């Protein structure tokens, strides 16, 4: 993602004068951290450093509050959607501060400039950015608060700050054996200036970083007490009603009427039937009442102007653009000696539309009043939701506050979009009451912003021995980034997210060219776990495998030769081959495939083993070796990489969204299936470190290598090359 660059957009991002007042709490048990939502948002300034808040706590900085009871409250700006960020970021801060982990309490950040991603100056959770962009910040704010505590301790103990250490929640003067707790020092520490460039601790002093910290959310997720968006109701909210919505089956379709409107309005609990531009909502006292009434409503829809859209037409359009363009050349590196010569080879790869299908369907609670709008939602895109709601309801953005529910039932990019928040706000305005909107699974699938279908034509020039000399690729894709980043100017014909993985390679090739066609289609498309890297590197890593086999070379050794100059890459690739027992003989009908990727600044190699019986494919084993530079938490990283590979198995074997009569065909999990437990292979994940490189993300790289390694394994087993997925397109079935 690029930073917001549109001036008008930036100008609208005004400072939000809403504080993070604290009430209530969600006890998570375990070794302590508690997530408290900022339930009550007063129109007062954010807790300024030095200000006493309530209950005798002091805001040492925007991010850390220390109570007289010695609790340390850390503000959690990033949404917890399974990636473990509510453990890892506070652990970083705790380590720097010198607090004891048991002192830490967590509180969700409101939408406020202080809690933006420091690199992009925008408040969101996604793009594997949470660790990459907040690592330095968490350490700095922890170090700043520590320095302030040390200064306060030095005053009280009448010693120099350098003679003190912060450890285990105390400021300790080792020479005299005296110490003060953080709680005792909080009030005076808060009076000290926040140091602009605090000194970070040396690695030797860090106790949590690099270790497996038990997830703070594990207990609440094992006893059902974890509050997701769908569960969350702010304490004390009066008059809440629930909404179910049904939109037109085709893009651009409109509701004309509800034929049995009086009967629907007379149903139990029904408060209102609201006509929206794209569909009909029923608002009722209970969600089930709304849902049942909506199901009984005889809605007449008028088809929109895309009613003739279907998958066959889309496919033809993609093919036409691949052949004819126009293309934008986004990368063209050629050797100074002139274009590379050599034998040409070409292959085209095709991926399908896919839905996010987060297990928690989209939902939001909105309360629109004359004085302002509050949204409580499981959102990855707090700040975008704020501006989108303001724009849709034509109010000033500073009157809108978007608060995140404690937990998100999956995100994967879908919850960066603000559409469900906007719809809840429109409904609340329509009925004049707080409304909790919950989409049915059917609505959730129909109104997704899909991972787009993409088409990739790769061309190589190889020498007499089959070695790769130059590579050029054509990519046809609709936009990915625009819906989650509206300022993006697409008139240039370039979408940076769709190009991920096509602009750079670690492979040594003399020539490298990428041409891109930005496809215009009515189907909404956007970011989806692995974004552009997934499809683009599926093409590249399948193609490299094809080149290896054409050269009669071992696919691992063929890659190895292309990476001979790159120590870090070789280490990852070699380790994957070694761990997988590459070259060891497999049973008849079995095959092993390898893929190597560099995505989200993590270098990763994966070996997939399959066994094939007729048209049935069993994935036996997936060996992953990843080097994110520095592993902040090995257990959370391992779980994320493994989960990513499972995500990829669903993507390669199961789900495909198709279109007919202007809209998507699949409606629920019976026809948009995901992999299940019985289909799991054995997973082995190994982590490597490389000091001094940019910190890599681990949330989205997990799935990237799996699909190409899988098709490469299937080729090894059967001699059949799959250039399109999911598997069902080729008559195979995962077992």
């Amino acid at each position, binding site marked *: 993602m690029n930073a917001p660059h549109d001036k008008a957009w930036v100008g609208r991002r005004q400072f939000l004068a809403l504080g993070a007042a604290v009430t209530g709490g969600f006890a998570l048990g375990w070794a302590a951290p508690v997530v408290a939502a900022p339930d009550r948002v007063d129109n007062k300034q954010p807790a300024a450093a030095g200000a006493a808040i309530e209950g005798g706590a002091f805001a040492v900085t925007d991010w850390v509050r220390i109570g007289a009871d010695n609790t340390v409250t850390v503000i959690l700006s990033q949404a917890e959607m399974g990636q473990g960020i509510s453990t890892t970021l506070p652990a970083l801060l705790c380590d720097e501060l010198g607090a004891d982990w048991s002192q830490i309490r967590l509180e969700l950040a409101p939408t406020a400039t202080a809690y933006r991603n420091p690199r992009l100056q925008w408040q969101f959770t996604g793009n594997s950015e949470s660790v990459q962009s907040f690592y330095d910040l968490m350490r700095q704010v922890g170090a700043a608060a520590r320095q302030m505590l040390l200064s306060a301790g030095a005053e009280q103990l009448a010693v120099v700050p350098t003679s003190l250490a912060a450890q285990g929640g105390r400021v300790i003067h080792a020479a005299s054996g005296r110490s003060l707790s953080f709680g005792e020092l909080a009030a005076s520490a808060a009076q000290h200036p926040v140091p602009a460039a605090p000194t970070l601790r040396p690695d030797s002093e860090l106790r949590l970083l690099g270790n497996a910290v038990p997830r703070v959310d594990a207990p609440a997720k094992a006893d*059902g007490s974890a509050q997701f968006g769908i569960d969350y109701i702010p304490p004390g909210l009066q008059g809440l009603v629930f909404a179910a919505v049904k939109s037109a089956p085709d893009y651009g379709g409109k509701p004309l009427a509800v034929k049995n409107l009086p009967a629907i309005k007379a149903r139990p609990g029904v408060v209102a039937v609201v006509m929206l531009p794209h569909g009909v909502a029923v608002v009722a006292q209970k969600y089930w009442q709304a849902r049942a009434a909506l199901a009984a409503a005889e809605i007449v829809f008028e088809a929109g102007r895309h009613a003739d859209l279907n998958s066959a037409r889309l496919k033809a359009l993609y093919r036409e653009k691949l052949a004819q363009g126009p293309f934008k050349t986004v990368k063209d590196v050629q050797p100074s000696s002139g274009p590379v010569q050599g034998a040409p080879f070409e292959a085209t790869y095709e991926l399908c539309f896919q839905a996010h299908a987060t297990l928690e369907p989209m939902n939001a609670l909105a309360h629109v009043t004359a004085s302002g709008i509050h949204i409580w939602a499981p959102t990855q895109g707090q700040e975008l939701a704020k501006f989108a709601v303001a724009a849709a309801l034509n109010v000033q953005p500073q009157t809108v506050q978007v608060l995140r529910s404690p937990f998100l039932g999956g995100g994967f990019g879908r919850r960066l979009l603000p559409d469900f928040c906007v719809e809840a706000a429109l409904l609340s305005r329509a009925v004049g009451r707080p409304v909790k909107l919950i989409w049915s699974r059917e609505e959730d699938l129909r109104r997704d912003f899909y991972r787009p279908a993409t088409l990739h034509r790769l061309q190589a020039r190889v020498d007499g021995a089959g070695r790769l000399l130059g590579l050029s690729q054509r990519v046809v894709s609709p936009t990915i980034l625009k819906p989650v980043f509206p300022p993006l100017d697409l008139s240039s014909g370039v979408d940076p997210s769709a190009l991920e993985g096509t602009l750079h390679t670690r492979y040594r090739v003399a020539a490298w060219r990428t041409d891109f066609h930005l496809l215009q289609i009515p189907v909404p498309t956007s970011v989806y776990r692995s974004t552009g890297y997934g499809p683009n590197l599926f093409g590249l890593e399948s193609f490299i495998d094809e080149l290896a086999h054409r050269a009669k070379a071992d696919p691992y050794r063929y890659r190895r030769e292309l990476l001979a100059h790159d120590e870090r890459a070789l280490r990852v690739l070699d380790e994957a081959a070694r761990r997988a027992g590459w070259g060891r003989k497999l049973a008849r009908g079995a095959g092993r495939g390898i893929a190597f990727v560099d995505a989200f600044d993590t270098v990763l190699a994966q070996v997939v083993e399959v066994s094939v019986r007729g048209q049935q494919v069993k994935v036996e084993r997936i060996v992953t070796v990843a080097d994110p530079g520095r592993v902040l938490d090995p257990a959370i990283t391992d779980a994320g990489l493994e989960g990513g590979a499972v995500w990829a198995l669903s993507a390669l074997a199961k789900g495909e969204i198709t279109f007919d009569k202007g809209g998507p065909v699949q409606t629920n999990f019976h026809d948009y299936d995901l992999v299940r437990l019985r289909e799991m292979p054995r997973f082995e994940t190994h982590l490597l470190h490389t000091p001094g490189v940019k910190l890599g993300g681990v949330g989205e790289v997990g799935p990237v290598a799996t699909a190409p390694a899988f098709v490469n394994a299937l080729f090894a087993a059967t001699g059949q090359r799959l250039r399109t997925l999911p598997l069902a397109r080729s008559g195979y079935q995962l077992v």
Partner: protein
Amino acid sequence: MKIELFVNGQTCAADVEADTPLLWVLREELALTGTKFGCGIAQCGACTVHVGGQAVRSCVLPAAAVGSQPVTTIEGLAATPQARLQQAWIEEQVSQCGYCQSGMLMAAAALLKFRPKPSSKDIDEAITNLCRCGTYPRVKRAILRAAAA
């Protein structure tokens, strides 16, 4: 209609439409929101609870059909002999987003009730719930850990 349910060891009353699924009675009438809505057609298992000791998908079961059979939800799991699953879940750090995990735990509890020492194959067959984060390998490890405890 007025119905009476026996949930997590307590008698509860609710006044709902006759077709209201057990899921929504639990969530909206009894404030037991640990049981989740995922699909509404008994495909994903996020709504799994025990009725009469069996794992059922509560999104398609009318509450009125439950009758006198006892209902156990995730909130009541700790009071059952299968409570050790919850500890195993924490020890194996199973959950990621966590949304499917109430249903997973209840499906696992039903399995252990009838097969205290399940084989890997038993688990493959019994656990058909969907998890989008891909926690399946850890789900299996936690079930085996609880069974070994």
